[in-house]
């Protein structure tokens, strides 16, 4: 494992005075919200597929409310930050606690990303309006920071299972 990634994995990223380490971050993800092969090829289809996946897992009560919120969030400005990664996120009453979902699209999604390139990696964060532990923005910031590393992005394109994803986030591989 490159030293830069190991260092990043050990370290903490500061986001406006709030921080979250990789151990805390990985607790937000789960095997049931890990999608290795996203089928959709456009933005709305990808959002729908991810929300439906969370609804089937019993995490979301009213999927239409969540989907509407995420689409509205995209009209505020694309969450496709470039380099093939998007971070659909927002707050909704229709979620009881902070939810994190990872999805990968081997073929890429036409997402309207800032750099115009297809998106292959998705980190979705949905938070309730009131969150006592205040983990939403620190988690988002931590992943945005982590994904700047090219080797991390490359490994995320190669992993096949949630345990591999977990090891990568923790800097164990």
């Amino acid at each position, binding site marked *: 494992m490159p030293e830069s990634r190991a260092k990043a994995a050990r370290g903490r990223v500061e*986001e*406006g005075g709030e921080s979250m380490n990789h151990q805390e971050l990985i607790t937000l993800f789960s095997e049931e919200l890990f999608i290795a092969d996203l089928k959709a090829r456009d933005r709305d289809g990808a959002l729908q597929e991810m929300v439906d996946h969370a609804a089937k897992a019993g995490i979301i*009560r*009213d999927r*239409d*409310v969540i989907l*509407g*919120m995420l689409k*509205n*969030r995209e*009209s*505020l*400005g*694309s*969450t496709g*930050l*470039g380099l093939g990664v998007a*971070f659909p996120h*927002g*707050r*909704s*009453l*229709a*979620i*009881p606690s902070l939810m994190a979902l990872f999805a990968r699209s081997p073929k890429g999604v036409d997402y309207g990303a*800032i750099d115009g390139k297809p998106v292959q990696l998705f980190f979705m964060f949905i938070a*309730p*309006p*009131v969150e006592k532990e205040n983990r939403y*923005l620190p988690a*988002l*910031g931590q992943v*945005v920071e982590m994904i700047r590393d090219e080797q991390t992005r490359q490994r995320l394109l190669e992993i096949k299972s949630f345990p591999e994803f977990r090891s990568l986030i923790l800097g164990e591989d």
Partner: protein
Amino acid sequence: MPSLNEQLLLLVALQDLDTMIREAEDKVHADKLQAMGFPLEGVDDLRRARKELAESIERPLLTRYERILGRLGRAVVPITGDVCLGCFAIIPTSYTSAENRDRILQCENCGRIFYWPRGT
């Protein structure tokens, strides 16, 4: 006419949109997102979406929502367990039955409208 359940979901969607607009206009919150690289340029689009959504809600209900929003900042609040997360008052057990969870009920203490994010 939309069912009560549909009207409640429209209120939930409206509250989500109001939360998004408020956060986009909050400098501290917006600065954090922009520092991460997220553009926040479409607030006017959100306001247009809000107007369209509000028009689909029955007028008396929308008026009630706006009045609570103006007075308390948040009009619809989630219920966790038996607690109103608007004022942290314990709600009557008669409110928590499965059939009541899709009805438009207000907290007897703070007046906010209830929503159960965990379903029935």
